[in-house]
């Protein structure tokens, strides 16, 4: 760990997060969150999704603004490519989650970050989704994330940041562990 004269500032309010943890352990019902999105079919494989509200801290919460996402399939699948593919959103989710974690853990450990870049690749055999080989799964068969991090810390401390960020990541957990999914039709 590095000691610097100026206080470390990665723009993460770690004290607020630690205070929240203390408060939520005492009031576990407030820790129950529900994340929400709504998706509308546009045409073809193109859909438009919006994220505005979520539930948490015992009540309804609203984002500062509505966030929109277009998803589609690329032209090699004879689609119009009006947006990233859904599986690319999954990769974006993982890389964003891990990167947020790197910043938070670095702040907590007093490590100043100068730059953090992640590249992420997910390998997939599309014979699975095409139904061309029943033994091939639909999802990724492997995901690799590579980080380039410039920080005022040793290589070992930087590796520990990235490892700890995986341990605390929601999306890493979602991808590496099973989740019950229920889809209903109204």
């Amino acid at each position, binding site marked *: 760990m590095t000691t610097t004269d100026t206080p470390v500032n990665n723009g993460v309010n770690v004290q607020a997060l630690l205070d929240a943890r203390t408060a939520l352990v005492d009031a576990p019902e407030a820790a129950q969150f529900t994340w929400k999105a709504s998706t509308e079919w546009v045409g073809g494989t193109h859909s438009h999704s919006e994220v505005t509200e979520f539930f948490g801290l015992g009540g309804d919460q609203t984002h500062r603004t509505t966030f929109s996402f277009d998803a589609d399939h690329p032209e090699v699948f004879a689609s119009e490519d009006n947006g990233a593919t859904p599986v690319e959103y999954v990769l974006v989710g993982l890389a964003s989650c891990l990167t947020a974690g790197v910043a938070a853990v670095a702040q907590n450990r007093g490590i100043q970050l100068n730059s953090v870049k992640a590249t992420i690749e997910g390998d997939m055999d599309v014979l699975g989704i095409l139904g061309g080989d029943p033994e091939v799964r639909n999802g990724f068969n492997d995901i690799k994330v590579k980080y380039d991090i410039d920080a005022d810390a040793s290589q070992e401390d930087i590796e520990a940041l990235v490892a700890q960020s995986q341990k605390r990541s929601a999306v890493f957990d979602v991808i590496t*562990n099973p989740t019950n999914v229920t889809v209903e039709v109204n």
Partner: protein
Amino acid sequence: MIGAGHAGLAVSHFLSLRSIDHVVVERGEVANTWRTERWDSLRLLTPNWQSRLPALEYDGDDPDGYMTMPEVIGFIDTYAKVVDAPLRTHTTVKSLRPNDDGYEVVTDDGTWSSPSVVLATGGFNLANIPSIAEAVPGSVETVTPLDYRTPDQLPEGDVLVVGASATGIQIAEEVHASGRPVTLSVGEHVRLPRVYRGKDIMWWLDRTGVLDERYDEVDDLVRARNIPSPQLVGTPERRTLDLNALTDQGVRLVGRVAGIVDGKAQLSGSLRNLCNLADLKMGRLLGTIDDWVLDNGMEGEVGTSHRFAPTRVEESPPLSLDLSFFSSVIWATGFRPDYSWLHARVLDRKGRLRHDAGVVTEAPGLYRIGLNMLRRRKSSFIHGAEDDARDLTDHLVAYVGVGAPV
């Protein structure tokens, strides 16, 4: 005092020194859980020189060895005699509840009333088995470390050991060696070498002050109290038993069991990161030791600094296991205390005792000793009982307001 293990007896010793009238109630014999709830080959993780209690030091001829269970039982038996504890063995506590005088303790051999009660009932009363265990197919035998004695009690065939702390790796090794091929499900774990730079790792943890670190000094007490027991084994050869050693013996490492659906265990894809985390944390500890050696001018007196090979994880570990392939599953997924007899509003929503370093603040006069990181990192070790027992006795004496100064 409820419980005549090493921690309860240590408190009894300090109470006697301060002339506090007390009785030690024990459901079985002295050191009961060591007699009845441990597997045959188990030895302490701590070396003999560290087996010390207030008023009793190890005086055998093998300070670097590790006690077998009969030796531990003998040591604690001797301790009960040395401190002349006022024992009531074969007396099971049925309930503990507040009354006008403090607490009423109902046993199967009479009822006691006392202004103060110390719970020294151990931290490992019940096997902590995840709820997903219910989905294991009926054809597979399910075993916990509390029932496990030797590999021979298991049916022939493949065995899935879930959990890779000290318990899991030790059982995995001997079951695999018995001819029952073991698959080991690995979650978060603590990797430690048995010996580093020629000294037992416990020697380093003792000398560098790690074991004396107090509950109010660590930056994350929740985490510190929930750290799994380190991957260590006590053997005459002072062998390191880590995941690489198990891989070399033919044990297969797989990810954490995250769910069981239709007879198949779903395995987490986090194995590589968890192994990496444990390697990094061990590296950091060894770095701390190296710094300490340098700072204390001991460079010439101990072995040279070195690092251990990273944990090997296969390229694509499996993500599911067909449980019908296994003849038994051993849940080495931790333990928890039993408070089913404790009728006071002092348990949290998960059934854990709320306490401030052993002082149950919501129930004045009630104390707890012998839990992980109760007051110090060493709290769960035999030698850790001394400082905790002294501190809690001080608090208790001040509370009951009697007793002569030592």
